[in-house]
């Protein structure tokens, strides 16, 4: 049953970046090292806080205004997702130097399996992990925390033990000792309902749970619960998902607006503005969506969404406005205050595949293509706000005013030959030398 004989039946590393967005900013601007830095200026909310800011009590999700009160010297930056994505891609590429088995779990977290690679690297599993951490830290210039253990669940527990710049190993022998100190609700994939249920059976720590007999676990929990139990006992249930994440499988656009609104037209204008922006991006990459998802976020941060399958792949707001309006009608409630809207264009296919069906009027579609080609070239020449749909007019005006100072430095600091739309895929160090 539970106990393990060998100390390393499998060896899995969990890599977790420390305060990732803020760390990237400090890496491209060394002057910000050691200073409290937050990102999220464009949303008026702390999206990420550096460890220096966290030490002052500034957490993710805090209003910028409050954060500034807590720390008048706070450095507030607009989010630069392009730079963060570059760092993220590099992180996974460096991990692949050590092993081909890498999972891109999220933008700032990943797993790497190194089982069987001791001979290749001429060292022990913890030593391989340490080397990986050192390489990531020195080449990327950001803080990285690493956990090494027998399963993804245990590796996650390891990396959580010590942060930032932490390095924790949980081998087969150390497993029980660590799990004994870990509250059950802190285990990955154990939600509040499950932990409440387990507590009713006297299970308080992760070890209490891991030591329960299998029949008991199977009786009270469903499949994911049983899998977690196995993973805690060092048996791999969740293999790494090693497919490289493809870009632009979806295109999404979200914007928070101030002040929050319960005006049906105002909120719809915000939504349509996102639809227009997403469509324009899709057209730029010659993609059309087969599915469109919209969501509205209320002032209490609860979000509600709906999705629609399209009869024909599209990247034209004129076509999408009627399904979007219909979904919006179902979602919107005039008694609520809304703070942001979003759209996701999913199931993207190359635009050439979006042929007209038999009963459509090809002339009308060709006309629409020509109209949008004209709109795109006008927007290229005169800026994003040169032409837009009447439905998004009110949103275009307000956003235009508040967007000053919200553009990431990289988008203003262009090198010769770069444009506002396309830059070299390398992070730019922002110091004067």
């Amino acid at each position, binding site marked *: 049953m539970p106990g393990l004989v060998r100390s390393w039946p499998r060896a899995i590393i969990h890599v977790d970046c420390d305060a990732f967005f803020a760390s990237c900013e400090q890496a491209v601007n*060394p002057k910000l090292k050691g200073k409290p830095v937050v990102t999220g200026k464009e949303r008026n909310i702390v999206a990420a806080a550096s460890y220096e800011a966290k030490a002052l009590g500034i957490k993710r999700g805090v209003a910028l205004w409050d954060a500034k009160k807590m720390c008048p010297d706070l450095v507030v930056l607009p989010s630069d997702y392009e730079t963060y994505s570059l760092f993220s891609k*590099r992180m996974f590429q*460096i991990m692949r130097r050590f092993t081909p088995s890498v999972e891109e779990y999220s933008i700032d977290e990943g797993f790497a399996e190194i089982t069987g690679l001791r001979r290749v690297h001429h060292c022990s599993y913890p030593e391989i992990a340490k080397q990986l951490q050192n390489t990531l830290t020195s080449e990327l*210039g950001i803080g990285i925390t690493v956990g090494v253990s027998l399963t993804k669940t245990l590796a996650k527990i390891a990396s959580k033990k010590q942060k930032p710049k932490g390095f924790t190993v949980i081998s087969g022998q150390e497993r029980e000792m660590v799990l004994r100190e870990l509250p059950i609700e802190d285990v990955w994939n154990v939600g509040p309902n499950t932990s409440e249920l387990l507590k009713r059976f006297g299970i308080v720590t992760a070890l209490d749970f891991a030591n329960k007999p299998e029949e008991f676990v199977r009786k009270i929990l469903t499949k994911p619960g049983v899998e977690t139990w196995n993973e805690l006992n060092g048996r791999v249930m969740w293999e790494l998902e090693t497919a490289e994440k493809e870009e632009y499988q979806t295109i999404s656009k979200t914007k928070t607006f101030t002040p929050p609104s319960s005006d049906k037209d105002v909120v719809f204008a915000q939504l349509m503005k996102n639809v227009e922006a997403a469509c324009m991006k899709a057209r730029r990459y010659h993609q059309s969506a087969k599915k469109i998802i919209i969501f509205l976020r209320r002032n209490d941060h609860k979000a509600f969404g709906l999705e629609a399958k399209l009869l024909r792949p599209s990247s034209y707001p004129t076509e999408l406005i009627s399904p979007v309006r219909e979904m919006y009608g179902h979602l919107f409630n005039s008694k609520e205050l809304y703070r942001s809207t979003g759209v996701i264009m999913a199931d993207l296919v190359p635009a050439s595949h979006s042929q007209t069906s038999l009963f459509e009027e090809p002339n009308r579609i060709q006309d629409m293509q020509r109209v949008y080609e004209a709109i795109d070239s006008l927007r290229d020449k005169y800026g994003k706000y040169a032409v837009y749909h009447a439905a998004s007019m009110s949103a275009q005006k307000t956003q235009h005013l508040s967007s000053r100072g919200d553009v990431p430095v990289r988008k203003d*600091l262009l*090198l010769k030959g770069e444009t506002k739309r396309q830059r070299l895929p390398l992070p730019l*160090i922002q110091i*004067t*030398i």
Partner: protein
Amino acid sequence: MATSMAINLPTLPFRGTVAASWGSPAEEELLDTISFDDWINPNKESSFLIKVSSDAMIDAGIHPDDVLIVERGKKPKSGDVVIAEVDNEWVLRYYQLDNGKPFLLPANGRYEELIPHTTLVLIGVVKACIRKY
């Protein structure tokens, strides 16, 4: 053109000849070339861009507004051009070792050499200098 035939294999019936081609010799020769991207920037994961503003390295051919490719996490050798933080200032200089002690040398007579008093932090080693006309 080359042909292929079944010879000395009596159990296989002879079915005739097939035309085969060598393909274009140009294709194969091009296998031994690298892209401009790989040439200018071989270590993609650790390379960063930085724009030059000072003329401290002008005699080394590095002008204001040039764009440098800088590699992070590399140990500099004596004589490398580096970007470093010296006593809270960021500079572009030659990295020199004098009896194992590092100091930073400009390539411009109007600048003086820098001997770090408290700290020397290497940001990166310069691997290429690009100027677009």
